[in-house]
């Protein structure tokens, strides 16, 4: 089975207030390929302050299946942390807060810029 059969496209936009939770979840659930997500900064004006951080691309179907589902995401997170024998750094409440304000689109492949424009988000010049 090749990669294109096991992955699907998602565009994810999370708020600046919850981006640390999103980064921690991605890094934990996909240690080698989920690190350094949500580094592209956006706002309604294209100027600071940054209101959203965005990632767009192919992710595993397994990962996509739990997106938006806070209990399932947190459960997977707990299992990954337990396997790695590492302490948990986010709570279920933080995951729920993340999803409450997150934007998850499965129809943006090839139209990322258009979707972001429709969402009213413009890139912000910010040193990473």
């Amino acid at each position, binding site marked *: 089975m090749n990669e294109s059969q096991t992955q699907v496209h998602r565009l994810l936009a999370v708020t600046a207030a919850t981006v640390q939770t999103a980064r921690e979840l991605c890094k934990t659930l996909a240690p*080698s390929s989920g690190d350094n997500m949500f580094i592209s900064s956006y706002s309604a004006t*294209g100027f600071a302050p940054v209101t959203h951080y965005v990632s*767009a*691309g192919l992710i595993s179907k397994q990962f996509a299946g739990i997106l938006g589902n806070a209990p399932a995401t947190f459960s997977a997170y707990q299992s990954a942390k337990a396997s790695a024998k590492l302490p948990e750094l986010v709570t279920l409440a933080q995951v729920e807060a993340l999803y409450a304000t997150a934007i998850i689109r499965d129809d943006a492949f090839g139209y*990322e810029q258009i979707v972001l424009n429709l969402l009213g988000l413009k*890139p912000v010049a910010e*040193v*990473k």
Partner: protein
Amino acid sequence: MATRNGMVNRSNQIGRVNERKNRDFFSNNLPFREANGLAPDLPLQFLWPTGAEAGGYWDFGNSGYQLTTNQVTATAGDFRLSAVGQTVGIQLDRKVRPVQHSLDLSSRISGYSGTSAQTIGVNENEITFTKAAAGDYIAFGAGVEFPVAEFSRVEAVLLIESPTLTVNGINFIMGNIGSLLILSPGRYIYTCQSLQIVNGQFIVQAFNAINDVKLTVLSLTGYPGSHLQQGTTTARPISAIETVGSWNQSVYSGRFDGVDDEVRTPVFVAGSLTNNMDVFMAVKKTAAAQSVLLYETSASGTKYMFLNQNGSPDPVSPPSGGAAWTCFVDGVQLGGVANTTAGELYDALTINQWHVVELRNIDMSGWIAVAAGNYTAHRHTGNIGIIAVCPAQSDANRTLARRIIGAQVGLLL
């Protein structure tokens, strides 16, 4: 009217002949490349005659030099692209020629861990596991046989023999990446692609308990160079195909989403690139947004190229040492004698059309990496074909390079 129609018809005929000539000229199996000592799929290597010259040669149009991931942990392996639509985790630098390593493994054991079950076979390129526990390994190299760059890759062709294997599903790891799954007793030829040499060594390690497996290394090839990489899945460009031109040429490229996609080389030593470089890129913008096409680090502010921005009077690349950058698009010089402006380049890069952009005699001596796709707030939305960074060339070489790079994306230059 008849004359006019006749002229149109002749013009069309000439166009078709030229297209056919061009297609034949750049197809594989052509005598031109062989006459020039070039491998059929490496047409640009004349820009680096020995392979040791400064620069890099990355081709998003050739899946044979692209890998889907760049993971450095031993999980699911690391493979070459097998289909359009897959992500590009590594784009190999094709400037440097592959290196065939010696197969004398016995003299290069640099580490060992385990139950004394692993041995080097009678022949120097054999490794035998009689009874190994999970995690047992033999390490080779220690910088002796593999004095290659930190991010070099190797490819091994292996003969695996397990005549007495009784339990299916036993596997082990060759190198740091790529587990080999042995499903039944027998003899197998396995091409283990893109193993990563770390600190000048590679490892053969038992992934599960192994009983009586002999592995013979038939060949071991290194791919030195400075490879464009991306570890984060969502930030990888995606391999794309499109049909262009009146002869329906299939054009392969890397598609960048303009959100977070980026590829970059590992950091290298300043001075690796010189103060007199030429840069060629095949690019297609699919959005009108401003962008930077090549840079050292995102938001460096000083080390970037091909800034294109509507109406901007800024130069396409920051001037250095008083030099005035002049940019070429599809072989045509933009602007006057002074620096080409970002506005001029923006106007020249028509949306949804391929172009070959070119900067000459650029000072890149201070650069410590090369990256594309995600210069902050100037992200590239669109496609990239070949990127060539090479020592300054003769005009004849530039013309040839431009034609080859353009032909790959359907341009007659």
